[in-house]
């Protein structure tokens, strides 16, 4: 029993757990919007694209968030420009730009292996995060959370029905720019906890899980934030016993909860759907495929 409390005796573990939870909460918040819009892969792309910026920042001993921000901005502009000026599909453009940026980051790492720790960037290293990096993460997440709490209703309006949002006088373009700035900021923060390769899970999985459980957007956000924070806290805790792989543990937990929701969710789960089909078959006796519950 006492063994299980060991992580709480170390300052670095306590720091890791609450910084992770904070990041998980904000990412969970954003995941609700990304998931509904089908923008999930933007999170992945941004997380890879900021890698060269982080590498350069570590190389010149700058705050890593600054480098990440500029690289992310450059990548976003590049994607927008190529998309506008070519006939390529958006997924090809995203893939092309982020892999190129990532390759640039990896080339930098291979040229200056001593200055940049590649594992830290791509897999995160929250257990050994420096106070200075942790401070950046806390500032980023706190500001993002504050902004989100201010504008989350407006964002819903914009994301669900842009025309309507514009007609009631919301600054649609500005809200979208704010949203993507928040998303980049949170990928930058999540880089420290789970690493570039797993950021996508942080900004997708909690929202997707919540979407299987509830229908109202307010509850969706609450559940996603809770899942993000909870899994991050527990994940950081468990990773103490594994000696690392914090990101892997956090995301594995999130995925397991997602699978549980997929099977057992009260209304939208696999079992509930099966049951709905069966009852209509029994009641109707003829045509199961016409069941409204089976084909939403």
């Amino acid at each position: 029993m006492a063994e299980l409390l060991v992580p709480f005796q170390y300052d670095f573990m306590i720091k890791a757990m609450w910084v992770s939870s904070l990041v998980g909460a904000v990412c969970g918040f954003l995941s609700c919007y990304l998931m509904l819009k089908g923008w999930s892969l933007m999170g992945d792309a941004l997380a890879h694209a900021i890698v060269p910026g982080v590498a350069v920042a570590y190389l010149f001993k700058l705050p890593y968030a600054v480098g990440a921000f500029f690289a992310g901005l450059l990548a976003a502009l590049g994607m927008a420009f190529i998309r506008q000026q070519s006939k390529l599909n958006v997924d090809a453009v995203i893939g092309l730009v982020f892999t190129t940026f990532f390759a640039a980051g990896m080339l930098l790492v291979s040229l200056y292996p001593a200055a940049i720790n590649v594992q830290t960037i791509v897999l995160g290293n929250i257990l050994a995060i420096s106070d200075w990096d942790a401070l950046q993460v806390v500032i980023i997440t706190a500001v993002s959370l504050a902004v989100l709490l201010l504008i989350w209703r407006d964002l819903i309006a914009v994301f669900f029905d842009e025309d309507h949002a514009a007609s009631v006088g919301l600054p649609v373009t500005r809200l979208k720019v704010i949203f993507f700035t928040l998303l980049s900021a949170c990928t930058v923060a999540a880089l420290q906890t789970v690493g570039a390769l797993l950021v996508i899970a942080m900004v997708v999985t909690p929202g997707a899980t919540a979407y299987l459980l509830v229908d109202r957007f307010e509850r969706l956000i609450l559940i996603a934030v809770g899942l993000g924070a909870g899994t991050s806290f527990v994940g950081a805790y468990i990773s103490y016993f594994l000696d690392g792989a914090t990101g892997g543990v956090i995301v594995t937990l999130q995925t397991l909860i997602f699978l549980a929701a997929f099977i057992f969710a009260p209304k939208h789960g696999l079992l509930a759907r099966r049951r709905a089909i069966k009852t209509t078959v029994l009641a109707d006796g003829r045509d199961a495929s016409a069941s409204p519950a089976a084909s939403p």
Partner: protein
Amino acid sequence: MMSWISEPLSYPFMQQALLIAVLVGTVCAVLSCYLILKGWSLMGDAVSHAVLPGIVIAFLVGAPLAVGAFIAGLFCAVATGYLKENSRIKEDTVMGVVFSGMFAFGIVLFVKVETDQHLNHILFGNLLGVSQAELIELAVTAIAVIAIVLVKRRDLMLYCFDPEHAQAINLPVRSLHYGLLILLSLTIVASIKAVGIILVVAMLIAPGAIGYLVTDRFDKMMAVAVASAITSSVAGTILSFHIGGATGPTIILVQASLFMVAFVFGQRRTSPIALDRKAAQRPSLR
């Protein structure tokens, strides 16, 4: 100039690296044309991340790593399809959940299990550390994939371009779908040793994108894709020798420069069909 090119090639390990780079580049380029048409660019991303747990589990049970990787990659694609059909979540979201979950699980397994593999080599590849046996494995896979694609290239193209039409003229759409997924997984598994999980994604997008920009005809597109992939593989390998950087990333960056050249100078006027497609998807993405 000549010695700039010939000097690196006087080393046997560089010759082998060059051969591997060209092989991987060619097979990825051939597939990338179909992926671009099908809008599957990010499927390569998903499958390549998902192979990690397969590699670790194969190591645990003593199976060939490639087999484990292949099964895991295919599992990711099939699971994505299954989850999408049985829930109300969008496909790209499901894909993100599945592949990141599998990758995360792979990382946890990797930390738990003592393997003789370097995580960095799996993630980023090691073009200079490929053994003779692995080279043969890669060559056989690459040639087999290219041969199958060439034999089936018309059917695959029609399926990627217009699945409904393909179905209407009685093509085996299901087998084409899974066949393409299998070819993709095979290619990724064979390439990972050389270029790693992440950069293989670039090789599965950029050549096809270059081809797609400069021509409207599929055969030409594939020729351009293969030519640009081979060019960047050769140039990237030689360049990496001189700058002392990692080979995989250098190849990708050369490829990206070729893309920029095609983007600035080589673009054909957008065809009406492509414009239509773009207009149709714009509202959902802006």
